[in-house]
């Protein structure tokens, strides 16, 4: 699965959303994104790198992220990704969609017999 969590499986589309969010915090390279995700999710999310890069490609192809080569903190050459205008808009839209989804699930789960 794209994103594994100890609590269960998460859909592939989530990965796109999470990557967009991480990049909204600042441009980063692939490894940095995966570290940040782990960190932000309190080690719950470990990104399968085999899915990370294809996801980044997908996002780039859709025009939500753009990339450029740069130098990392330890002076190594790395490819950096950053959010584009459309990416920002997409992030907002997906965040909202996620909120609606989550509240709907919660409402269903909160139903009591009777």
């Amino acid at each position, binding site marked *: 699965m794209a994103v594994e969590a100890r609590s269960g499986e998460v859909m592939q589309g989530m990965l796109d959303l999470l990557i967009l969010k991480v990049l909204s915090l600042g441009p980063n390279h*692939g490894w940095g994104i995966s570290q940040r995700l782990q960190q932000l999710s309190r080690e719950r999310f470990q990104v399968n*790198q*085999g*899915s990370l890069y*294809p996801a980044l490609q997908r996002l780039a*192809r859709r025009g939500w992220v753009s990339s450029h080569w740069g130098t*990392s903190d330890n002076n*190594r*050459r790395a*490819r950096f990704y950053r959010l584009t205008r459309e990416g920002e808009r997409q992030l907002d839209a997906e965040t909202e969609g996620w909120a609606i989804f989550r509240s709907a699930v919660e409402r269903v789960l909160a139903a009591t017999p009777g």
Partner: protein
Amino acid sequence: MEEELAFHLDMETERGIADGLAPEEARRRARARFGALDGAREGVRDERGTGLAVDLARDLGLTVRSLRRSPGFTLAVVLTLALGLGAASAVFSVVDGVLLRPMPFPEPEELLVVWETDRDGGTRREPASVPDFLDFRERARSLEALAAFRAAQVNVARRDADPERVDAVGASHGLMRVLGVRPLHGRSLGPEDDRPGAPAVALLGEGYWRRALGADAGAVGSEIVVDEIPATVVGVLPSSAGYGLRQVLSAADYGGTLTERGEVDVWLSLQPDPVASPRITHPIVLLGRRAEQTSTAEVEAELSAVAADLEREYPENADRGVHVEPLREVVVGPLRRPLAVLLAAVALVLLVACVNVAHLLLARGAARRRETAVRRALGAGDGQLLRHFLVETGVLTGLALAAGLGLAAVALRAARALAPSDLPGMGSLALDPRAVLASVAVAGAIALVFGIVPWVQARVQRAPASLGSREVGAGGGGPARGSRSWLVVVELALAVTLTIGAGLMLRSFWNLLHVDAGFATRGVVKAELRLPQSRYPRDFAVWPDWREIHRFHGEVRERVAALPEVERVALAAAHPLDRGFTNSFAVVGREAEATDWPEIRVRQVGPEYLAVLRVPVLAGRGLREGDRAGRPRVALVNRTAADRFFTVGSPVGQEVSMWGQTWRLVGVVGDERIHGLEEPAPPALYVPLAQAPSERAVVLARGGDPETIVEALPGAIRAADPGLAPFGVEPLARTVAGSVARTRFVMALLAVFAALALLLAAMGVHGLLAYRVALRIPEIGVRMALGAVRRDVFGLIVREGLALAVAGLVFGALGGVLAGRLLGGMVFGVDGDDPLTWSAVVGAVLAAAVLATLAPARRAAGAEPLQVLRME
């Protein structure tokens, strides 16, 4: 990308080291954490889609392998499409070469033919008179240039060469300027050459120059003798200069024309002389180039106004007007209909071929349902599936196109040999680049449609259930079967339509050849002559007493009659298919009526003409030896003339006035189809050659073996006068056949297409039935186990085939009616609903369908019930 992944790996490794692991350990964990490196690579690549070329290559390999595994299918599809595409590209080449190719002149759409019209006679394409031409040229502002020309056959003699009969055009000096043609060598005609009485000059046509003088540049400046008159060669003109002239001359209502070759061998100065050629005669045709920014209508308006002025000034121009047409219209206009018919026919053949292929593809698609389902399960996206199908159909169509183009090239070469030469551009008929492009486009469209259809089919079967379904192997399915039956019905209908069209044309041609021409063609050979002025002076003061001509007539008759192969010989001024000329005439005592009468065809014939050509005498008598110069003038009329002008009482005994003299009618003869087999005979007046001699002579010799006569005749004629050059020496039957050459050509093509279409349709019926039978083997097995006899099964299959055939016939009948209407004026002597044609077609189609059902039916009947049931 590699660098990016390497960076990630390194960072992860460092992390591991920082966590306290040994470097290799760290590296190993990093790798493991990374997941399948290759998976990452592949995933990126997939998302990136850069592998399009790689994917295509892979699809290509798969396709080739799968096609090679089913050679029968591949061969059937490629062959079928090749036939259709080949026929299409051949016809495209013809249409492009003849109709669409621009004329070999600069700004060709500016070129116009200026005809004169006769309001009284209702003619619209008459040649003009010399004084009219000079007036138009002077007064017209809407024309940039105007020129005149006429054509004739002339004797040309060069030093140390036999005299030859060639095609010549006399042109005014402006013609090359009008056409925009420059000479290959030397110079063009100039205004000083055009003055009456100027020294004679000639230009050689490119073809003649290459053929007779070996493209010798030294020809310019040499002397040739044209009809006994010496002329200096001043230049060589390219072949393109003569483009379309023959068609224009043929389109004219009367006048001399070039022979079928359509090439101009020698160009001479017209030297238009209003004195020698007054306003009353109309020997020349006018070609003009309209001025920039002017329209054809404006030119016609201006010239009509000039014509009206001339009408007022000169009584000879009474009722004469002007009609202007674009040159292209005159040259290719008459070809539009036959070419449209050809295009329609080839479209039908292509459709039939496509239907066959569609059928084959659908069958294959159904059989490959399992394969497609597996692909989908393995994750093939819609796009990838479509690409795969398109590659497959692309390969098939590509192969078919290559094969088809090869077929077309061969066919065109054959057509070049067989086609009538009077189609412009026919000589250079070859596979045309634009036609090839059009064929590629058609092939591409076919590939596209055929690629999408199985893809749609595959999408419809998304459900994974198809993997487990047993039907997959058999590839059956109720609705699919029904649609395939309809395909075959459509195919049959198309083939029937085509066959009906071809059948109508066949009957037309048969009728044409067997129509009563009015004169005998078998066993008669003609040889044409022109008696040059120098040795056969034509002094109109003593006409008809032209001694030298009469003497020649007698002598050549004797010599030819002496030939062993010749039974009888006759002389005339023109052979039966030579229109000759018309003249105005009146019946003595009814002159007032005659002012409304059209001119009558005048035939100058010797006394044995009627006997040699077996033209029957219907009343009175024929012409006799005694009807000579100095004796009372006699004449005959043909039946059409008798019916037209002599409604009350017999024409025999009445008198006719013509050429200022009276002629007593002594007989009525049968009609000769002078205007060609396809048209009714015109009214004609026959006068004795001895009483109305001409500088033209035709020797008509009848005998048992025309070929030997053809060889011996010129010799006998030259024995009478060595300086003559007989031309057009051929059996009359060949002249007649040549006159219907165009119809014959179209008919032959249509027949080929119809045969092709019928063959393809029969294959389609056979294929469908064979398929159906294969599907129904289990059912048949059950039937037989339940007591059905072989004969029942056989009959069942054959009945099915016939049902399809009948359905196809019904729809084909509708198509046939449309075909009949499209052919319209091209058919001769048959109606669109000719019963003989229709019954023949119905019979042929039914027979073909029955034949196609026999094999599958036999196979069905031969199935062993136990064996079949065991297959379950």
